[in-house]
């Protein structure tokens, strides 16, 4: 919902702290996830993730969440799905070129980032999205990547 989405950006700092705690819990649950099996968990976890993040951020389930790098404003709500900052068409009032009734998600992202402790992440270059991840859980992916990072099974992460 648009109003809730805007609220989340205004409370980007609180969201950042909340998520940092949540991520620790997720990673702690790794052995359990492995026991049940990631593929078996995919559907139910994605359903919960869609519900929670859909409400808070109008999440589009791109499967590669970068909310922590975009001031808690979901870049997939940009009609051009820009993941590296605003386009050159932002209106003088800060609204979207394509949807004049919507504030540019990157105007919000920049404001949200300024509220966050690690807001400078907005300056990182984001590579192109893997379209196969659409609809899949970012949370499970974080846990899996953490696992590979710790065991070193995949390099270059």
């Amino acid at each position, binding site marked *: 919902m648009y109003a809730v989405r805007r609220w989340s950006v205004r409370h980007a700092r609180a969201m950042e702290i909340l998520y940092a705690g949540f991520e620790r819990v997720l990673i702690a649950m790794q052995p359990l996830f492995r026991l049940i099996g990631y593929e078996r968990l995919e559907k139910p976890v994605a359903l919960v993730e869609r519900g929670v993040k859909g409400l808070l951020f109008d999440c589009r389930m791109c499967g590669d969440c970068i909310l922590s790098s975009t001031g808690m404003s979901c870049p997939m709500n940009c*009609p*051009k*799905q*820009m*993941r*590296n*900052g*605003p*386009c*050159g*068409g*932002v*209106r*003088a*009032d*800060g609204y979207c*070129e*394509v949807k004049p009734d919507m504030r*540019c998600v*990157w*105007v919000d992202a*920049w*404001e949200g980032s300024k509220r966050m402790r690690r807001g400078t992440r*907005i*300056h990182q*270059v*984001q*590579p*192109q*999205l893997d*379209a196969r991840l659409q609809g899949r859980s970012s949370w499970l992916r974080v846990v899996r990547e953490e696992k590979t990072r710790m065991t070193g099974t995949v390099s270059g992460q």
Partner: protein
Amino acid sequence: MTHIDAPPDGSGELRGLSSDGRLERVLKSSQFAITAELAPPDSADPEDVYERARLFDGCVDAINATDGSGANCHMSSVGVCALLSRQGYSMVMQVTCRDRNRIAIQGDVLGAAAMGVTNILCLTGDGVQAGDEPEAKPVFDLDSVSLLRAVRMMRDDAHFLTRRPLSTPPRVFLGASVNPFVPPHDFQIHKLEKKIDAGAQFIQTQYCYDLPMLEDFMAQVRARELHRRAYILVGVGVPSSAQSARWMREHIPGLHIPDSIIERLERAGEPRDEGARICVETLQALRDIEGVAGAHIMAYKREADVAGIIDRSGVLADRELR
């Protein structure tokens, strides 16, 4: 001054240059560079392209071939570049992410480089709602920054995004756009830096009709020394009348024209001449701003006036014209 891209002289690479093109050499030798936009025809006749290109003979360092600008259908930038390359012109091929995915774009980059395109401008592109095909499906598989990163990877690391190797990488000078005139104002400098980090070597800005605003932006550029990492060519236009300026302000996304410019056109007896004067004055002002490396002229429907305007401005006085 010649218009033609010098072919590599057999020895292969020019030292310290990432392309074999004229634009990069002019910029790296600290000369004020001029690029101009060619309006692509709604036609399948090559002569329509050559006719438009000839208007810029001897007065620009490269011609920009737009890629469906304003999300309108025209001859493709690849097509225009293919034609111009046959006559030895120096081109900036514009690539947008609106109509093609990464498979198509990477293929076009190789094809273009093989034809002799030495400059590529990486853009996200206007939304489809802005043009004459609002029912089209927008692609946006990449954005301007991930596109820059992808083409740089092809050139410097000699592989596709998938890491599949290229036997001959494309030798291209990489460009990006920046719009210092729209919100979020304090973020634009960071966006510029991000584009440079991703591979941009030259920048062409949106139309500049607000010099004080540009000065502010350039002060930020100098403070972060970004002008030492990329060449900034400022976009200039040639307005024809107050009405058309107003129309453009309302209909072209991201275009900022202050009321003072529109009033000036309104007061003028000959608004077309006044528009040309505005362009001449802007060019002269740009030459004196530290960190501005050149100008990019977008003279929509006034391409025939470009040579005269450049001449009057004197920005190329240190070079031999024609």
